C-alpha cells in the first residue's frame, strides 16, 4: 500500500468508528453487564459472592495489563489480524465457560482467556482510529466510546432475558456468539500506512523509546492519577445515597441519569476537541479539573436537587474527559507509535483503577461516611490535571494537531537506529 502523509480524516475512517463503537460495546458492555450472571453463579456453584466477583476482576485486570501485548502485536502485524484473533479468543473463553464445572474453570475461561481476547481488541482499535483521523480525531473517538454507555443499557436486560430463557449455560453460549462479532469488527480495520511508520521501527524499539520520552511519562502519571479518582462515583454513589437515607430505587435511577449524560458529554467534548485550536491537553485539563471539583462538592450536597444536578454534571464531565484523553496521546508521541503508547498507558493507568475503589472503601470504613472518599477522589483528579500542565506546548495559542512534536523527532534521530529493511507497516 502506498504511504500517506496525512490521516484520511474520513472516508473509510467512519467505518473504523463503527467498528470501534461495536467493539467498545462488546468488550466493556459485556464486562459491565456481567453482574447479571453473578447471582446465577453464586447459586449454581454455591460459592460466596466475594469469590464469584473475582471472575470480572480477573477479566478486567488481564484486559488492562495485556494491553501492551495487543499493542506490540498490532505494531508488528497491523491491527486487523490481532483484533480478529482477539475476538476468537474472547468468544472461545465464553464458550468454554458454558461447560464449566467449578469456579476455577470460570476464572480461567472468562477471566484469563476472554480477558486476553479483550486485551487484543480494545487498544489496537482505538489506536487504529487515532491513525485514521487528525482534524476530527476527538469527535471520532467520542462517538466510538458512546458504545460503552449504550451497550450497558441494552445488555443488562438482554442478559437477564437470556438467563430466564436458556439458563446460565445456554446464556453463556449465546454471549459467546455475541462476542464473536468482534471478529467482524476486526475485519473492518483496514490497515493504513502513514508516513511516519517506517521511521519509528518495530515494537521493541518503540517501547524503549517511549520509556525515555519525558512528556509521555508525565502524561502516563497524569492519567494514572485521574484513573484513581474517576471510578469512585460509579462504584460508591448508590451506597453514599443510601447513607443519606435514599430508597434503593431512586438511588439506582440517579446512576442511570449519569449514564445518560455520559455519552452526551463524550460527543460534545469530541466535537469541541476538534473545533478548538491548540493542544487537546488543555481541554483534558479543563474537564478533569471540573470533574475533580464536582467530586469535592459531593459531600456538601444534601438536598436531592443538588445531588441530581451534581450527578448530571459528573456524568457529563467524566464522559467528556475520555475522548480527549485518547486524543492527547497522538499529539505527544505521533501516530506512528500510537499502538505501543496506548498499550503502555492502559497498563499503567489500570493500577490507578485497581487501587481507587478499594482505597475509597477503606476510607469509608475508617471515617464512617463517604465524605473523605469523594474528597480524596477529587484530589486525585486535580493532581492529575496539575501534572498535565507540564506537557509541552501547553501554553501555546496554537500548535500542530497531528504531527509529532519536535522533541519526538529529535529523539528519533538520536536514539533509535533507523531500520534498514522490512519497512512499512501493512
Amino acid at each position: 500500500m502506498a504511504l500517506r502523509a496525512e490521516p484520511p480524516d474520513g472516508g473509510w475512517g467512519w467505518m473504523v468508528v463503527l467498528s470501534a463503537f461495536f467493539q467498545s460495546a462488546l468488550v466493556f458492555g459485556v464486562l459491565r453487564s456481567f453482574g447479571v450472571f453473578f447471582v446465577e453463579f453464586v447459586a449454581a456453584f454455591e460459592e460466596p459472592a466475594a469469590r464469584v466477583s473475582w471472575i470480572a476482576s480477573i477479566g478486567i485486570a488481564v484486559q488492562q495489563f495485556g494491553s501492551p501485548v495487543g499493542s506490540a502485536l498490532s505494531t508488528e502485524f497491523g491491527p486487523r489480524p490481532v483484533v480478529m484473533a482477539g475476538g476468537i479468543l474472547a468468544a472461545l473463553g465464553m464458550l468454554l465457560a458454558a461447560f464449566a464445572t467449578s469456579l476455577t474453570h470460570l476464572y480461567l475461561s472468562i477471566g484469563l482467556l476472554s480477558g486476553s481476547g479483550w486485551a487484543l481488541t480494545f487498544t489496537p482499535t482505538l489506536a487504529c482510529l487515532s491513525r485514521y483521523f487528525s482534524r476530527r480525531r476527538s469527535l471520532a473517538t467520542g462517538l466510538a466510546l458512546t458504545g460503552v454507555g449504550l451497550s450497558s443499557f441494552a445488555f443488562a436486560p438482554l442478559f437477564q432475558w437470556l438467563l430466564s430463557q436458556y439458563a446460565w449455560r445456554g446464556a453463556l453460549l449465546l454471549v459467546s456468539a455475541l462476542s464473536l462479532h468482534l471478529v467482524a469488527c476486526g475485519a473492518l480495520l483496514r490497515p493504513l500506512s502513514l508516513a511516519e511508520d517506517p521511521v519509528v521501527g518495530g515494537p521493541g524499539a518503540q517501547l524503549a523509546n517511549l520509556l525515555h520520552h519525558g512528556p509521555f511519562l508525565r502524561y502516563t502519571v497524569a492519567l494514572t492519577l485521574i484513573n484513581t479518582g474517576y471510578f469512585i462515583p460509579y462504584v460508591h454513589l448508590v451506597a453514599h445515597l443510601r447513607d443519606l437515607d435514599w430508597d434503593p430505587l431512586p438511588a439506582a435511577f440517579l446512576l442511570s441519569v449519569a449514564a445518560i449524560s455520559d455519552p452526551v458529554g463524550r460527543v460534545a467534548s469530541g466535537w469541541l476537541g476538534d473545533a478548538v485550536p491548540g493542544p487537546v491537553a488543555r481541554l483534558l485539563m479543563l474537564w478533569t479539573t471540573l470533574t475533580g471539583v464536582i467530586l469535592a462538592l459531593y459531600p456538601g450536597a444534601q438536598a436531592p436537587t443538588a445531588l441530581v444536578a451534581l450527578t448530571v454534571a459528573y456524568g457529563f464531565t467524566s464522559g467528556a474527559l475520555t475522548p480527549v484523553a485518547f486524543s492527547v496521546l497522538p499529539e505527544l508521541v505521533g501516530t506512528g507509535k500510537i499502538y505501543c503508547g496506548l498499550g503502555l498507558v492502559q497498563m499503567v493507568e489500570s493500577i490507578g483503577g485497581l487501587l481507587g475503589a478499594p482505597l475509597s472503601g477503606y476510607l469509608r470504613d475508617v471515617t464512617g461516611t463517604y465524605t473523605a472518599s469523594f474528597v480524596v477522589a477529587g484530589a486525585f483528579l486535580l493532581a492529575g490535571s496539575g501534572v498535565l500542565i507540564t506537557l509541552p506546548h501547553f501554553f501555546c495559542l496554537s500548535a500542530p494537531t497531528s504531527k509529532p512534536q519536535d522533541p519526538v523527532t529529535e529523539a528519533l534521530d538520536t536514539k533509535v537506529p533507523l531500520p534498514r529493511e522490512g519497512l512499512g507497516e501493512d
Partner: protein
Amino acid sequence: MSGSSLPSALALSLLLVSGSLLPGPGAAQNEPRIVTSEEVIIRESPAPSVTLQCNLTSNSHTLTYSYWTKNGVELTATRKNASNMEYRINKPRAEDSGEYHCVYHFLSAPKANATIEVKAAPDITGHKRSENKNEGQDAMMYCKSVGYPYPEWIWRKKENGMPMEIVNTSGRFIIINRENYTELSITNLQITEDPGEYECNATNSIGSASVVTILRVRSHLAPLWPFLGILAEIIILVVIIVVYEKRKRPDEVPDDDEPAGPMKTNSTNNHKDKNLRQRNTN
C-alpha cells in the same frame, strides 16, 4: 351464616334447664358452665364484623383471670378478670378463621374453657406463578393457604384444557400435604410429558380455591440453534467485508513498499521533508 341469637338463646336455656333436672355426681353442681355464642362462618368478603361471646354461669369458685386463644395461642390484650368475655373481629377474612377458646382461670380449681369455631373457605395466599427448569432437573411447586377447617389438597394437571388428576405411573411425582401447605415435586423432568399447567386445589366444608402454576422444561439443545445462526451471520459478514475490500482495490499488493509511491496529498512541511530525507538514506 350466623343465626339470630334469640332462638338459639332459647334453645340453650332449655338445654340448661333439662340438664339441671338430671341427677349428677355431687361435684357436678359446682362445675362452672360457660354459655357461648354460635359458630361463625365467614362467607362473603368483605364480611360484616363478628363478635364472639362467652358467659360464665353457675360458678362457685373465685375467678382470677380470663382470656381468648386462637388455635391454642393466647391472643394479646384479651386478658381480663370478667365472667363475660367478648372478642370482636372487624372485617373478618379467611385468615381470621380458626378454633377460638375462651379460657377461665380459678383460684383453687382447674381452668375451664369453651370453644367457638370460626370457619371460612380456604384462600390460597402463596404459590409460584411459573417454574422454569432444565430437562433432567427436579421441579418443586407449592401452595400455601389460610382458612379453617384445614383443607384437603388435590393436584391436577390441565390436559386439553381440562384439569385431570395426576397419576404417578412413572414414579417421579412426590406430593407432601400439611394443614395449610402442599408441595408437588417432579424428579428427572422429561421435556415430552411434563411441561404444562398444574393446578393445586384446596377444599374444606365451606368452599374451595385453586391456583395454577406453569411448568416449563428447557431443552439442552435450545440455545444451539441461535448459536449456529449467529455463527453463520458472522462468517457472512466477514466474507462480505473482505470481498468488498478486494474488489475496491484489486491492484494493491500487501508487500508493495515502493518508496517513492504517489503521495495522496499536496501539503508539504518540514516534517514531511525530514521523513523523506530519512527514508532516502536507506
